[in-house]
């Protein structure tokens, strides 16, 4: 009964169900991994564990009531989500009989809080990426600095995570007294801090070995897969809506678009690190311009939005640059005080959809590195 040795040594693929509870799936993502030893032959993402059907909620709420729900999509960068929705509604209102005039102070506050939230979001991405690769310490450094931002937000809006701060016509509250001093102190402190992170993690030999050349997606593939934000910039395309279609008052600031070169994990990660520097620049310029224009003493932080908001009927699609990419809102209005349909185009959703093609033939540890590098938030994917 001598069987050939090759038949006796037949191996089989093993299905590894990674998640929904797993330390490095960044929420409740489940990956169905077909593994041959450590090699991943196929990785099928399963989502929906956090699905609340935001879009159905939105159909039953008035426009201002929707804003807190947008917070709960990308809860890491809630301010940016709010801004996107509010700008879309304001744009629609602007074509109607009762346009909303946003005061200049509110525009500056919006830019400042959004850039701060971008920093907070990238800090989280940086910290958890360190965890994914196996370094624990950067995570706590990142959280220490994120904490300061959250404290500033708490002072401003009363909440640390889900702010409901940006409203149609302006913002919910004015800067508290002396707030701009604390803000400036944070910006002064934080600008050199990014260099500390770079020495701690970015240029670490092991970190480089783990992330360079892993999960490469070129510019054309990025566009095909609908990638936006830091992910496509990592591939080398300087695509940033703040420059391409300047919304709010982003055309008044001088900042650069960091781009990568090869489109691998390290490039995507590094784009985020450099974006934090740019965000500090923008926030600082905004603060300076506020001072120059005497806006700090101005008490006009919101337009007079009285009565029920009834945008004109029609359909509008608008997108803004969140820390994760283009966040688009498609609003179908029937002229009433509630939208007939709100569709959200989530940047993480499209980013995750490319994971399957990217992870074939890599190791389990590489899949973890890729998930971390595209910086997903399940709240926004499942909505």
């Amino acid at each position, binding site marked *: 009964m001598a069987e050939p040795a090759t038949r006796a040594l037949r191996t089989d693929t093993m299905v590894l169900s990674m998640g929904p509870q797993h330390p490095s799936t960044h929420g409740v993502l489940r990956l169905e991994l077909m593994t041959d030893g450590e090699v991943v032959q196929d990785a099928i993402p399963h989502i929906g564990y956090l699905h609340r059907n935001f879009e159905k909620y939105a159909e039953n709420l008035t426009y201002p009531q929707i804003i807190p729900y947008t917070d709960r999509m990308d809860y890491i960068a809630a301010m940016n989500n709010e801004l996107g929705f509010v700008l879309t509604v304001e744009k*629609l209102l602007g074509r109607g009989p009762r346009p909303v005039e946003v005061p200049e102070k509110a525009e500056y506050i919006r830019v400042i809080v959004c850039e701060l939230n971008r920093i907070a979001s990238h800090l989280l991405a940086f910290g958890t990426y360190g965890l994914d690769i196996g370094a624990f310490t950067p995570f706590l450094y990142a959280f220490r600095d994120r904490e300061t931002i959250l404290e500033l937000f708490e002072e401003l809006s009363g909440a640390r995570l889900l702010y409901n701060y940006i409203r149609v016509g302006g913002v919910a509250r004015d800067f508290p007294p002396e707030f701009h001093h604390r803000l400036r102190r944070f910006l002064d402190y934080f600008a050199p801090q990014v260099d500390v992170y770079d020495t701690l993690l970015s240029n670490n030999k092991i970190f480089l070995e783990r992330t360079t050349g892993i999960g490469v997606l070129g510019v054309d593939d990025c566009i095909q897969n*609908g990638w936006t934000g830091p992910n496509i910039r990592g591939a080398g395309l300087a695509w940033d809506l703040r420059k391409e279609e300047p919304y709010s008052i982003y055309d008044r600031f001088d900042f650069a678009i960091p781009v990568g070169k090869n489109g691998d994990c390290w490039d995507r990660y590094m784009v985020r690190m450099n974006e934090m520097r740019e965000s500090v620049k923008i926030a600082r310029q905004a603060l300076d311009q506020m001072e120059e224009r005497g806006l700090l003493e101005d008490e006009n932080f919101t337009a007079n939005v009285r009565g029920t908001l009834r945008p004109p009927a029609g*359909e509008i*699609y608008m997108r803004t640059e969140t820390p994760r990419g283009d966040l688009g809102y498609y609003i*179908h209005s029937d002229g009433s005080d509630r939208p007939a*349909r709100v569709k959200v*185009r989530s940047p993480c*959703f499209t980013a995750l959809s490319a994971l399957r093609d990217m992870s074939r033939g890599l190791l389990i540890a590489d899949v973890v590195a890729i998930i971390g590098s595209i910086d997903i938030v399940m709240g926004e994917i499942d909505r």
Partner: protein
Amino acid sequence: MTPEEIHDHLLDRFGGDVVTGLVQSDESDPKSPVIYDPAQSMIGASAIADVAMFCRDDDALRLDALMCLSALDRGAHLSVVYNLHSMAHGHVAALRVDVPRTAAVVPSVERVWTTASWHEREAHDLMGIAFSGHSDLRPLILPEGWEGYPLRKDYEAQEYYRGMKVPF
């Protein structure tokens, strides 16, 4: 190119049978305007995949990025709106397909833009639009075997899902 010019370009190429009309803003009555931003080119359902391929590959259009694929419930019709963007030329366009509620089948544009794959799965899940030619239309967001399409206006939640009471 503006969305209107893109519409004319498509009309030249495909003719009135396929490109059936342009839905655009009507601001003649300042009291109650109707806004379409961007204006939408109505496309016959059966031809959408060809039109999409043309939009992507035509040198003048080069609409290489599918920004958003939205499914809407307009009562008698369900519609799919494709918001397109050209990274090369920097212009945007919107295509729209209306299908009857009872026979909601739209050809898939997955082959044109890879990202459409998940968007179509989501639209299939939540709005009940079948995308013919799609490689994998399994439920993406809803659990396996969920009944009904939650984003339709006439949706009512099922009473039990696998023995669990649904409306709490």
